Each structure stands twice: as structure tokens, then as C-alpha cells.
């Protein structure tokens, strides 16, 4: 079986769930399917203007990457490879047209909430729509229950960070990081998120400064993609205005392939907080990773994260982007630290069992096989289905 995976970012660059999830899956899938090709950087945002990096086409098993600057040449390459099944993690009008023209079983995975409102052309053309939570699935199906209800499936996101959980090297690294970040025994509150309004980082910073004023000994560690200097200044100014510059550690984007550092960062934190409002948050892989490393976590009580983490009891939910609620949440974890540690510990085991990339990759391999054998799948009975139930039938 030759699988074609399509993602938004070029090659092995990670820019969010829709980039990291397919990449991590590929690492496991390459032992489960014969060949994998990865098309990167070609999405609805780069169709009109060629991005600096060009479009990348990688033959994963051969570890060979080509860069294309011409769409026609790229299209020819795509057709010459002739994949057996296509799995697209990114929207794109032209991409969708190519996929349709290829005429092979075509899966589209919806990673965002806001795209749901405008990606009808994808939902129409894909043979199978998958979402990462029931919340998003419901939203898609609601648009056209007759049409989409029969081909929408819920396959959760995955992580392999649990593999680092008991790794002595990571533990050592995290202890070093802790000594470095919190020399005065501060409690570390960590967030790893794109520095933009919807992630609630600014509100989190405000909450932390208020907690410090109220006598808590906290250090705020930030890491993530910083889209502009202004946002960085805005975040730093929240601390500067209260003379708390020494209470924030500002890391930029953690480079790709630096997973061990990231795992150690999660592990060294006392609390991981992501009070995002769900504008783009449909699952939160970051929280999955934080919980894998047994770090008690706070998440915006809304949409996908609410369904996956809060309602299952894996993390503490707070009103999204609400300073008071975030403060309360952090304080709750500090006050019930033993209990919350136990919660994170159990959550990590649940993630290992249910959301490990190896397991999810296996599920995907089964889906691809099923799709190749009978392309026109119809999911009967219910408007959208859990993948476990569907595969068990």
C-alpha cells in the first residue's frame, strides 16, 4: 500500500496539531504500510502565493525530499507516484482538486474548529471525513446530516510522549531545567502555545502576576511560536509593569526534533496551563503531551478539550481566557497538589492505553485497508461514529 499524507507545513516542520499529528503518525505508520509519501506546504494559504520554502514532497521510506516551486510539476510528480490512499490533514482548494482527480480513496481529517464553517468542498469530495473529537464531528454533521452523517468518523489525536515518562535521561534533564528556571524553589507554571489571543496566554500571564502579588512563589515559563514582536512585548510588559521581569522565562519556538527537551520542559513544570478559548483548539495535543509527562494541567473548559480532558477527569477545566478562573484553577492545583499529581499520573496511564501514537497508527492502517477494499464506505446507524465501534463491526 502506498499512502500519501498531506500536511500544512513543509517537510518535517511542526506548526501545530495538524502538522505534528501526521508527522508522529508517520513515524509509526512507516512500519505498518509499504510506502509513505508526504506532501507538505501546499494548502489553501499557499495556493495563491508560493511560500518561501516551496512545496515539499518526501518519500518517507527513502528519506528523500524534493522541493517544488511549480504547481504543475508538483502535480505531475503526485500523479506519477499514484498513491493507493490519500490522507489529507490540511484544507486546500487545489489540493482537493488534485486529490479528486487522482481518484483514489481520500480521507480528510479536520483539525480545526473554525475551518469547519468553510470547508464544505472538502466534506463533499472526501470519501471519509475524520475529526479528532465528537464535538467537531457533531458540528460537521449538523451542516448536512444526510450527506456527512454517513462518512464522519472520530479518530482522536495521539502522542508518544509517554515513552519519555520514565526515561532517566529526561528526568535528569528536567531536574537540571528546574534548577535553572526556579533557583529559588518557585513553582513553575508552563504553557506551550502559539502566542496569540485565542490561546489565552495573556490572561494566564495576568493571572500569574496577580497570584504573585497575593504571595505565591511562581515562575512562568513560556514556549511557542511567536508570530510578531508586538505580542512578545505585550506578554513581557504584563510582567514588566509589575516589576516581575524575573518571574517569566520566555522561550521561542522549540525546534523540530527537540522532543526530549520539550518532554523535560513538561516534566519540570508544576502546572501546565492552556486556557484557550477554542477558536482553533479542537483537541490540544500540548495538553496530551503535558499529561503524558504527569504534569497536572489546566485547560479552557470548552469544545474539544472539554470533551477529551475535563469531562473525562484528566485535567482541571477553567472558564476560557478568564483571569479569575485561571487564578482559581492554579490555586486549586497548588492546594490539592497530591491529589492532582495522582490525577495526572492516572491520566498518563490512560493516555498510554488510549492515545498512544502506536495504537492510533494501527487504527489508521486498518482504516486505510478497509477503505481500499471497499471505497464507498457508508457508516450507517448513527450520525457519526467512534472508530473503535466502526472497526469492531
Amino acid at each position, binding site marked *: 500500500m502506498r499512502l500519501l499524507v498531506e500536511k500544512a507545513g513543509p517537510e518535517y516542520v511542526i506548526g501545530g496539531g495538524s502538522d505534528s499529528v501526521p508527522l508522529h503518525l508517520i513515524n509509526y505508520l512507516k512500519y505498518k504500510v509499504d510506502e509513505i509519501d508526504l506532501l507538505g506546504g501546499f494548502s489553501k494559504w499557499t495556493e495563491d502565493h508560493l511560500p518561501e520554502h516551496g512545496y515539499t514532497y518526501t518519500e518517507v521510506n527513502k528519506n528523500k525530499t524534493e522541493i517544488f516551486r511549480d504547481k504543475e510539476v508538483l502535480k505531475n510528480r503526485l500523479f506519477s507516484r499514484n498513491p493507493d490512499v490519500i490522507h489529507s490533514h490540511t484544507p486546500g482548494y487545489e489540493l482537493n482538486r488534485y486529490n479528486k482527480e487522482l481518484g483514489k480513496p481520500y480521507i480528510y481529517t479536520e483539525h480545526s474548529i473554525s475551518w469547519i464553517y468553510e470547508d464544505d468542498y472538502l466534506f463533499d469530495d472526501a470519501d471519509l471525513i475524520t475529526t479528532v473529537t465528537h464535538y467537531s464531528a457533531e458540528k460537521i454533521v449538523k451542516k448536512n446530516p444526510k450527506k456527512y452523517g454517513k462518512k464522519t468518523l472520530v479518530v482522536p489525536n495521539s502522542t508518544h510522549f509517554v515513552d519519555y515518562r520514565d526515561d532517566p535521561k529526561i528526568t535528569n534533564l528536567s531536574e537540571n531545567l528546574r534548577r535553572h528556571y526556579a533557583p529559588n524553589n518557585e513553582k513553575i507554571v508552563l504553557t506551550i502555545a502559539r502566542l496569540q489571543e485565542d490561546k489565552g496566554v495573556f490572561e494566564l500571564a495576568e493571572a500569574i502576576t496577580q497570584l504573585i502579588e497575593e504571595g505565591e512563589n511562581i515562575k512562568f515559563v513560556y514556549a511557542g511560536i511567536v508570530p510578531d514582536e508586538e505580542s512578545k512585548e505585550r506578554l513581557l510588559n504584563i510582567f514588566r509593569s509589575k516589576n516581575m521581569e524575573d518571574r517569566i522565562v520566555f522561550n521561542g519556538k522549540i525546534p523540530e526534533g527537540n522532543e526530549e527537551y520539550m518532554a523535560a520542559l513538561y516534566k519540570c513544570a508544576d502546572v501546565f496551563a492552556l486556557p484557550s478559548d477554542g*477558536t482553533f483548539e479542537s483537541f490540544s495535543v500540548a495538553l496530551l503531551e503535558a499529561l503524558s509527562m504527569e504534569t497536572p494541567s489546566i485547560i479552557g473548559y470548552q469544545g474539544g478539550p472539554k470533551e477529551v480532558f475535563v469531562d473525562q477527569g484528566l485535567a482541571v477545566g477553567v472558564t476560557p481566557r478568564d483571569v479569575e478562573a485561571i487564578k482559581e484553577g492554579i490555586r486549586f492545583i497548588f492546594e490539592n497538589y497530591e491529589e492532582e499529581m495522582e490525577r495526572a499520573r492516572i491520566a498518563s496511564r*490512560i493516555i*498510554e492505553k488510549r492515545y498512544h501514537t502506536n495504537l492510533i497508527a494501527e487504527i489508521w492502517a486498518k482504516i486505510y485497508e478497509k477503505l481500499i477494499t471497499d471505497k464507498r464506505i457508508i457508516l450507517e446507524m448513527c450520525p457519526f461514529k467512534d472508530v473503535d465501534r466502526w472497526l469492531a463491526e
Partner: protein
Amino acid sequence: MRWPWNRVGDELRTELERVRRDYENYKSKTERLIGEYRNRIEELQRENEELKRTLDESIIERCEKDLYEDGINYGIVFHGRKEECERGFSILDGISPSYTLLQMELFDIWSRIVDAVTNFRILHCEKIERDLGIKLEKVKTAYKIAGDYLKRQFYSPEIYNLVSRLIPYLPSRTAPAPPYYYYPTFYMPYPSSYQKTSYPYSPYNPTKKSDSKIVTKSLDNVRNLAKNLGVKIE
């Protein structure tokens, strides 16, 4: 006896003499010109160095691509001083013509602030002149000079930092950005307006303070879930 060939020799000598004189004239003239050019070049280099230094000190961002400091080339480039004058920025004498659009907007605001203050002061002077019947021409001129000076101080760190606090409220920042800016991709440079404009679809409704809450499930709940999934938690 003067032989014909002697005559030829004399003529040849005078000719040679003339050529030598011409050559020497030419040589000295060329040397003088070379000297002049060298001086001119040195002078230009000095000027250039000085200009570079001034630019480095006074301009924060001069890259053409960074007109809006977001890495996008909007295809707008300012060449030379002429356009600047047309735009009424002759005040920025000696400052690079390729200052960013953002700086242009900021400067516009700054000069309006200064003008407003200066005008107010001059009006105040005029009121005193009317009321007390005294001439305050020198004071008014002093205010004008001070105003011009303040405008020129736009690039000083104190004033630039002060004015740049207005960036989020600039018209260019509050106008909606092209649709592809709204999406969370890492490679797309966002203009800062991303923060200010509303998202295309926001399922989230801002909550009131009184709605603030935290939600936690009991630990037994998680334990049961683990048990149901067959996860060993001991």
C-alpha cells in the same frame, strides 16, 4: 653650412619640444584632476559614513521588505526625497527615505500632537497679547522652534517608545487583514492586526466575571475510567 637634413633636424627638435611640453601640461593637468577626484571621493566617503551613522542611529527598521514590519513586501517603495516631500514629510531631512509605513503613520500622529500643543501655546500667547497689549513675537517663535525640534526628535528612544504604544490603535492595525492571516499556520507572517480583528468564526462568547468557574471531576471518576479501560494504575 646648413644642410637640408640639419633643417629637418631643427624642425624635428621644435616639434619634439612641443610634444614634450604638451605631454607635461597634460600630465600635470591629469595629476591635478586625479588629486581633485581623490579628494572628492574621500569627501563623499566621509559623507557616506556620516550618513550611514546617522541612519543607523535614527532608523529602527529600514528594510524595504519590512515596510509594515511583518516581512511582507507590499510593493511600496519610497525612492528619493521627492516623494517624501510630496507626502509632507520634509521634516525628516537627513533620515532614510525607506522608513517604514508604520513609522510614517506614527510620525503623522506625533507631528499632529506637537502641532496641537504648539498651536495651543501660540493661541495662549495671542490671548495674552490681546489682553495685556504686549508683543510676544519672540516667545511665539520660540514655541515654533521648539515644536519643530520636538518633531525632529521623533526617532529619539523616549519619544519613539511613547508613540509606538499607539501601534495597536492605528487605522492600519484595526482594518481587517486578508483572510489567510487568520489561520494558525507557522509560516505565514501575521500582521499585528491579527490580534485586534475578530476571528472569522468564534464559537467562544466572552464570559462575564461572575461566570468564572473551574470544573473538576472527582479522582474516583478517573480511577473508574482507568478501570473500565483496563489500565493498571498501581
